[in-house]
């Protein structure tokens, strides 16, 4: 019999419909997998009851001959940045340890309404700040991948959605939610050989998602392949009147619209993405991707995004600025951690609480953000960064005159070892160099696995699309997926 944990979302959904297996069998199989994978530290909280309840509902519906919901009986992982009613939500911080929301985020509610169940809350970089999942208060997430040749160094699963990427790659769940502020879905997907899409800013509601940088945060799915991403995104997206930046548009039928025929499409190759010191393997994979696109019928054009080199600095001003303000609510007054030393006044309580509740990376970004918004520095940093952001958006608009999608590497390297970059924040920030520009412009972008490097580690290719053209991005991703034939998976060592 098939091991159902090898299956993706579509196969599980279809198998339940055709009664090849029950939803309960699926849930049970994944629950066992999760419980045996503690070494990966992908989950902060496990919620087997939630998954079982959804499975039972699906099986009842099958037995009653009812029409099944789109994700009926599919158990998924939920990044612990989404508030889940009655289930601890921490953003991987000490600050929110023990915090149990009395409300359900819009995205997770959409998923439950579509019939999905939750296996647990997934670990992440604290408050989604990090690219290696080394900033979680609940410990590092370990990638299931290892370099070949007996090198057992623990590798980064990417970040901030590192629990999500690890859980999917290790087949602890067929799909998971992620959030992407500057690459937090795409870079971990690339590091672990899975797919992930960040939709157009505004497609998925931010209501109930612990905020990092409001103008950039966007939820999206992570899964084994493009089709599963399409299915998940259809369930997650949709207008939400509770989010003023939500797009009031119908949700397209992305799964039904999948089509990998690239004839008549133009793929832009941005020359500014050829950065210094990029490993030859990344360059080679990029060229391979170009060839695959040609093979799919696309025309390749070189385009220029002249302000690319300013994207990372602008991002590391705008995102910390917003975070410094967004995280002000964690003050020990109403919920979460409160550190009240004997005799402390209000200011001292704030200081003690925030010193104890936030990790180093969060503090670093709050301090950077506070600095760039300060009187006398605001114009030089924040205003300037906003101008750069506008110029970057304009770069993309010009590119769309010449092409339909952009193809780039997702990250400048394969997964690095835990600890390798954690002492050097700037080296860490450079990981986002290819993902940040499209975040600043609010564009849909996805990462699909392209191949392995010489150490046997996955490498990802990124497709960036026009605003609202998730369908095109998924289609281009599918064209690559079909040609890459990526079947590598980590050997279970945990």
């Amino acid at each position, binding site marked *: 019999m098939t091991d159902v944990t090898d299956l993706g979302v579509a196969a599980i959904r279809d198998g339940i419909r055709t009664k090849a297996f029950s939803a309960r069998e699926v849930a049970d199989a994944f629950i066992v997998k999760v419980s045996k994978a503690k070494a990966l530290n992908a989950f902060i909280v496990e919620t087997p009851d939630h998954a079982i309840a959804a499975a039972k509902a699906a099986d009842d519906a099958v037995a009653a001959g009812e029409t099944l919901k789109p994700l009926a009986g599919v158990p998924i992982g939920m990044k612990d940045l*989404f*508030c889940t009613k009655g289930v601890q*939500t921490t*953003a991987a911080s000490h600050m*929110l340890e023990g*915090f149990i*929301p*009395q*409300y359900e*985020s819009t995205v997770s509610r959409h998923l439950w309404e579509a019939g999905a169940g939750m296996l647990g809350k997934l670990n992440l970089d604290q408050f989604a700040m990090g690219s290696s999942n080394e900033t979680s208060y609940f410990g590092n997430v370990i990638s299931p991948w290892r370099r070949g040749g007996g090198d057992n160094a623990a590798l980064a699963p990417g970040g901030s959605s590192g629990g999500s990427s690890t859980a999917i790659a290790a087949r602890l769940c067929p799909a998971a939610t992620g959030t992407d502020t500057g690459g937090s879905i795409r870079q971990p997907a690339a590091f672990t050989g899975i797919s992930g899409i960040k939709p157009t800013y505004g497609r998925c509601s*931010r*209501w*109930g*998602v*612990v*905020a990092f*940088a*409001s*103008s950039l945060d966007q939820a999206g799915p992570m899964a084994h392949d493009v089709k599963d991403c399409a299915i998940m995104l259809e369930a997650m997206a949709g207008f939400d*009147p*509770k*989010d*003023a*930046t939500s797009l009031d548009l119908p949700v397209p039928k992305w799964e039904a619209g999948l089509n990998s025929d690239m004839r008549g499409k133009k793929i832009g190759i941005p020359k500014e993405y050829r950065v210094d010191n990029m490993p030859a393997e990344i360059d080679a994979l990029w060229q391979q991707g170009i060839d695959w696109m040609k093979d799919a019928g696309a025309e390749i054009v070189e385009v220029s995004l002249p302000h690319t080199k300013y994207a990372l600095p602008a991002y590391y001003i705008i995102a910390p*600025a*917003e975070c*410094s*303000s967004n*995280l*002000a*609510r964690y*003050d020990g*007054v*109403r*919920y979460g951690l409160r550190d009240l030393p004997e005799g402390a006044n*209000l*200011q001292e309580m*704030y200081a003690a609480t925030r010193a104890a509740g936030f990790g180093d990376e969060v503090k670093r970004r709050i301090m950077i953000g*506070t600095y760039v*918004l*300060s*009187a006398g520095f*605001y114009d030089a940093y*924040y205003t300037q960064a906003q101008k750069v952001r506008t110029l970057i958006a304009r770069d993309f608009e010009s590119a769309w005159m010449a092409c339909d999608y952009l193809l780039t590497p997702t990250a400048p390297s394969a997964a690095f070892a835990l600890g390798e970059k954690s002492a050097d924040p700037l080296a860490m920030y450079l990981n986002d160099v290819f993902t940040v520009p499209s975040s600043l412009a609010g564009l849909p972008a996805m990462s699909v696995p392209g191949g392995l490097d010489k150490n046997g580690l996955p490498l990802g290719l990124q497709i960036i699309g026009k605003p609202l053209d998730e369908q095109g991005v998924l289609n281009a991703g599918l064209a690559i997926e079909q040609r890459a034939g990526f079947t590598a998976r980590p050997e279970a060592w945990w």
Partner: protein
Amino acid sequence: MTESTYRIHGDTGEWEVVIGLEVHAQVTTQAKLFSGAPTAFGAEPNTQVSLVDAAMPGMLPVPNRECIRQAVRTGMALGAVINKWSRFDRKNYFYADLPQGYQISQLYHPLVGEGAIDVQLDEKDPESPTKTIGIERIHVEQDAGKLMHDQHPTRSYVDLNRSGVALMEIVSRPDMRSPQEAGAYLSKLRSILRYVGSCDGNMDQGSMRADVNVSVRKPGGELGTRTETKNVNSVRFVMQAIESEAQRQVEVIESGGRIVQETRLFDPDKGETRSMRSKEDAHDYRYFPDPDLLPLELDDAFLDECKASLPELPDAKRRRYEGDLGLTAYNAAVLTADADTARWFEALLAESARVQKKGEPEVARAAANWLISDLFGALNRLGKSIDTSPVSPEEGAELLALIADGTISNTIGKQVFEIMLETGDTPGKIVEEKGLKQTSDTGAIEKVIADIMAANEDKVVEYRGGKDKLFGFFVGQTMKAMQGKANPQVVNELLKKALG
């Protein structure tokens, strides 16, 4: 523009006072600015709080269209520029009554730009000169919660009921030169807000409060350093705060000191201001555009609706009362000063015209006089306001009609009104039941006159002998015998005939 002659008399001569007001007016709506939570005043602590107001993780603000609409209507009523594109900014600071750690406000691009208000320099004298006070801007922002220090010996409690309530901050130009001008400005602003219905103006409930900016200078000289006295919550206190603060500043300067730019508090018990914090420890609020909100863009249809929904405003109403209704300047001023009074008067007027089948201008004077003297007198005595008046405009109109058509006299009218206040009965019923109807029955009156003349033969002789003044005596006796119900004109005619 009229120049104020208000001066502080210091040891070195006269000083001019320069005043600007920032008025925080709570928008009258059912729901808060960025959440659906209700805004009832006086509710139990922390019962009017949504997840958004408590700044729970992941909660987002969504602008309440009605709050924006009311601020736009207010701007229009002040003749101000409405900015079709505006934006919300975050003002960042930590305090226990501020759950988000920032207040959503509008620093860089306010909803409403420049406007103006004409104020009467002597509110008691409608003929006194007016002065135009400039409005710099109106922006919309969230209120904070409230700390309660009296609940526990060592702890403070937080009530978030007000957290997120919509405020309009109405910023004046520094155009005022005396406490009286500031008081007149504040009263007039309050009147306009109440007409528009965008703020109830209840200063004692905190729905309206003023930050008072004061500086002093030698008349016509360079502007001095200003201080800001926060959250003053009555017209009288604003005037007192200006007076004492200006006096203090003159004393500081004249004794060789320097005014520091600072935030001060007004102590109503002592009638003076005291320092709260100086500019040196002022917050750096790190304002920046709120990334949770898109810029606010208003279309023409929305603005047209706002414009169309504006009521007649006090100045226009006053001109109409004087011009079209023929009221005195004083009466027009009194009746239009407050929206509730004007509304009551207009209901009385319409009903009077209807029941008397006359035009409004024909019944306006009597209605205005009755409202201002009789009704206001009674309300004052009872300690009631016009919107809780025990007598309705319809009942008032019925009373005025009975007087106008001669059914009862003015004097009886006053009696009937007292009975109405006591019993709540309608004037018609009272006149009927108490038999107060005025009589023009010549037979009855003639009989009474004959009796009086018979009982006072000596006076009849005197009168006929040329003592004309005695006519009043006979009128009085007749009316007394008729219990005041005789038609005075008929009495006059019949007496003249009988006395010869």
